[in-house]
């Protein structure tokens, strides 16, 4: 079947759940009875939600650190560490950790020698470089003899783990899977192990894997290329403008030492929330989880990144000329998730682009027939720091990005100059409640949401309280916020202009 053009890259990933206040069994009170939280002496927060529908559980380990925290020159580091977290510990994945540790130190020394030569601006000796490279390979081979490859994930999978994965966003790093409930203790051992006892095993091979991930997601994807250029243009100071998977020359040079330093600084109890949802009893589970997760080192909450994006005063545009069909993207700076108007932005997105009743669909797709897909959404690329309110559209055949831009701007003007209708506002509130309620019946989704809210607000209950803010949004709020944020001087737009293949420059994202 023909696949639709989905802009999956920008679409929401984290299901946000809230409750239907009138829906008896699913309100804050019922969750109060089913959820237990505990802050351990090391600062780590545990959230346990009892949902015994089937003998399974899901967890979400939420680290309040993402690629926005990568030090300068080391973009992609948080993600690189995430990959390392699947490589095992001093107790799993090795035949003899003492010997392996010594061998890994030799790998690091060999790699340092190689990189020192490689990065010499003047007088690099190619022959010496080749010899140093061979020495790195040799050291890696020696270390490899102690490795039991993928043993960490193997033990998880053999014990029924499903959906074993993790993701690194700009704001956070999240590890998750689901398992039969009788493996809770095994999971606690595995999970607390990789949080507290990471080992730089097979690091440089894994760096190659991450470079392949970059080629797949960014270099070889028209949307990936457009988004990377768009963000790099929209931000001048804040790390939201930096490639989240990492610039090739940076992620390609990250060392195991840097990754371990990053781990030491950010993987401390106060920076971690672990949520478990499913067939678990808090009274039985908590003592067990406390026993294992107490292994995570205590440490002060790492300092937040303090860079503030200066107010944009110049409109910016990016044109990507390449042999792909046109796409259009624009964004306006908006405040972070703690802003009192946060729910107003959600109202704007709902009214502009939720479904076939939305203003953008009806105008650009149904009536003008100039686009086949159009969306308004925020915040992007993250929510913890001030992100962007974005519009994305795919023009219909033989229609231009200029037509798209003008039609989007016309809808923005409408939002700024006249109130939305009572029906539109009521629909937003109804759909928000219902959609969020729907999210409560899934262990994994609920675990991720609870961990996220516990991290962002210090209390998972905000999940339910947020609904009050949604209810308070007024028509004048929508108009006020639209006028505030949708200003041409606050805009960055990026589009693809189709040119014949011959004129396309070759891309080289690979540093190796």
């Amino acid at each position, binding site marked *: 079947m023909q696949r639709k053009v989905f802009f999956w890259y920008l679409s929401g990933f984290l299901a946000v759940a809230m409750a239907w206040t009138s829906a008896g069994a699913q309100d804050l009170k019922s969750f109060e009875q089913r959820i237990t939280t505990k802050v351990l002496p090391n600062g780590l927060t545990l959230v346990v939600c009892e949902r015994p529908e089937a003998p399974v559980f899901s967890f979400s380990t939420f680290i309040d650190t993402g690629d926005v925290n990568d030090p300068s020159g080391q973009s992609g580091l948080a993600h690189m560490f995430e990959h390392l977290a699947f490589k095992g510990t001093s107790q799993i994945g090795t035949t003899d950790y003492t010997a392996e540790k010594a061998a890994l130190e030799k790998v690091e020394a060999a790699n340092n020698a190689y990189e020192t030569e490689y990065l010499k601006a003047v007088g690099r000796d190619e022959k010496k470089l080749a010899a140093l490279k061979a020495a790195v390979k040799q050291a890696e081979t020696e270390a490899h003899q102690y490795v039991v490859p993928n043993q960490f994930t193997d033990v998880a999978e053999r014990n029924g783990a499903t959906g074993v994965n993790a993701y690194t*966003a700009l704001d956070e790093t999240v590890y998750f899977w689901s398992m039969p409930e009788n493996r809770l203790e095994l999971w606690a051992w595995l999970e607390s192990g990789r949080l507290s006892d990471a080992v730089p095993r097979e690091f440089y091979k894994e760096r190659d894997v991450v470079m392949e991930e970059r080629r797949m997601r960014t270099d070889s994807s028209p949307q990936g290329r457009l988004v990377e250029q768009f963000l790099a243009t929209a931000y001048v100071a804040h790390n939201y403008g930096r490639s989240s998977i990492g610039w090739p020359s940076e992620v390609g040079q990250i060392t195991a030492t840097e990754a371990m330093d990053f781990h030491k600084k950010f993987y401390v109890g106060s920076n971690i929330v672990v949520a478990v949802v499913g067939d678990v009893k808090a009274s039985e589970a908590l003592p067990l989880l406390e026993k294992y997760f107490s292994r995570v080192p205590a440490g002060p909450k790492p300092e937040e990144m303090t860079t503030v994006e200066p107010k944009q005063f110049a409109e910016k545009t990016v044109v990507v000329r390449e042999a792909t069909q046109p796409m259009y993207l624009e964004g306006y700076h908006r405040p972070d998730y703690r802003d009192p108007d946060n729910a107003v932005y959600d109202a704007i997105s709902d009214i502009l682009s939720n479904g076939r009743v939305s203003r953008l669909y009806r105008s650009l797709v149904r009536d003008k027939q100039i686009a086949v897909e159009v969306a308004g959404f925020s915040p992007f690329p993250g929510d913890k720091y001030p992100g962007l309110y974005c519009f994305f559209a795919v023009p219909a055949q033989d229609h231009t990005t200029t037509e798209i831009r003008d039609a989007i701007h016309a809808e923005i003007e409408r939002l700024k100059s006249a109130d939305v209708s009572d029906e539109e506002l009521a629909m937003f509130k109804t759909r928000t409640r219902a959609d969020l309620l729907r999210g409560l019946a899934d262990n994994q989704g609920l675990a991720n949401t609870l961990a996220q809210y516990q991290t962002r607000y210090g209390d998972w209950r905000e999940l339910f309280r947020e609904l009050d803010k949604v209810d308070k949004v007024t028509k004048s709020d929508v108009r006020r916020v639209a006028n505030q944020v949708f200003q041409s001087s606050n805009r960055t737009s990026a589009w693809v202009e189709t040119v014949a293949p011959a004129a396309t420059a070759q891309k080289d994202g690979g540093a190796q």
Partner: protein
Amino acid sequence: MKSAMVKSFLGISLAIAVLLAPSGLSAQQNKPWEQIPTPKLHEFKPQQPRRIALKNGIVLFLQEDHELPFVSGSVLIPGGSRDEDAAKTGLVELYGQAWRTSGTAKMNGDALDDLLEAKAAHIETGGGEDSTSVSWDSLKGDADQVFSLALDLLLHPKFSAEKLALAQQQMAAGIVRRNDDEGEIAERESAKLVYGPNSPYTRQPELATIGTVTVKDFEAWHQRTIGSKLIVSVDGDFDPVAMEAKLRAAFEGLPPVKAEPARHESFPGPKPGVDFIDKQDVNQSNIEIVGLGTDRHNPDVPTLSVMNEILGGGFASRLFQKVRTEQGLAYAVSGGMGFDYDHPAAFQVMVLTKSASTVDATRSALAEIGGLTSKPFTQEELTRAKDNILNSFLFRYDTREKVLAERVRLEFYGYPANYLETYRASLEKVTVDGLNAAARKYIHPDKLAVLVVGNGPEIKPSLDELKLGPVTPVDITIPMPGQKPGAGEKK
């Protein structure tokens, strides 16, 4: 908190399971995790939906679930794109879109949108390879109204020329964009290698074929399919007695269902060799190694499923261990023998690697495929694969929604209701000898085709180095109106 830019650890991995005995495993002194007790799993009997066969042949499934105040349902209708006229390829997809957007005589699609969205309810239609469907969901309080609207749409659509044109425009945009993303190209073109470019499973909609579709075609399609064996399923927060009465009232009066004619299809499989599609705006190759798979009626499927786990399943699979972990050549690598319910799926292994390592990665993947017959399976591999599959088997039925979906699927394809149980029992019986025999029977590296989509000038060494015969370029030019459909097929 709705949008986030994320990178996941596993990307595309579809698969299933495990690999080589880790080197030095025996040398490992102590395995602390093995000291951790595994208590008995809490008792669990998944709730089966109630099945009601109406006299006219229509089948109803009712699955109660009172956790949340929602009711949802669907009607599955046999007949899909593989049954459409080749000259009108794309008809069923257009139908699936325009059915809902057109609406009924009582209420057109736009009015339906307004009414439903205000209630946070949905009614959708869809067109797939072997079926079309109408589905709905709403809050409990709106369930009766939403059901009657869905029923009206199911039985009395009023197709609109305007909405057909809108659907055609949407689909045309997809057609002209279909060569932008290399993953999409690789998936589409490798399937064409397996089934042939004109097969009902792979022929592609063109601007010319979708342009011929009319409202009359929609009406004829509806007429042709609505009398077949419908499968109606509902789940959620409803009263079972009232729901049964309501469904009986809606469906009992329909005429007896018409039997589907038997399918007569042949599946020759791909022509061995290397095919290449040049795409110069990428720096990574998409490699697809494909052959013919099998269908789930085949009694060897449980064994093949264990073999898949060993070849390309999870983190410990041979492909993952070799190509990703050991060689660092790929982020995305997976694959195995595919099984469909009523026709052979494809055997498919995919690897994404930087242009320069295309030949190395292809060789590695081919070696692992060949290794299925030359590197005998070990007891260790078998045990691991079985552990993986059986210990996570629970997740096939851990929600009532999944149980219902499985029962509908089995009913649709004519499999017994206890299929999962017998399948599980067969998985438990798989042996090393069985694996080796299945590999000899089904794995024929000389019958596989290799498709590479990538940046020609960057691929060094070149694909000739694979020494699998001449490299055949594939022309994927999109035919524009005026050209004959199919003019852009493989030369």
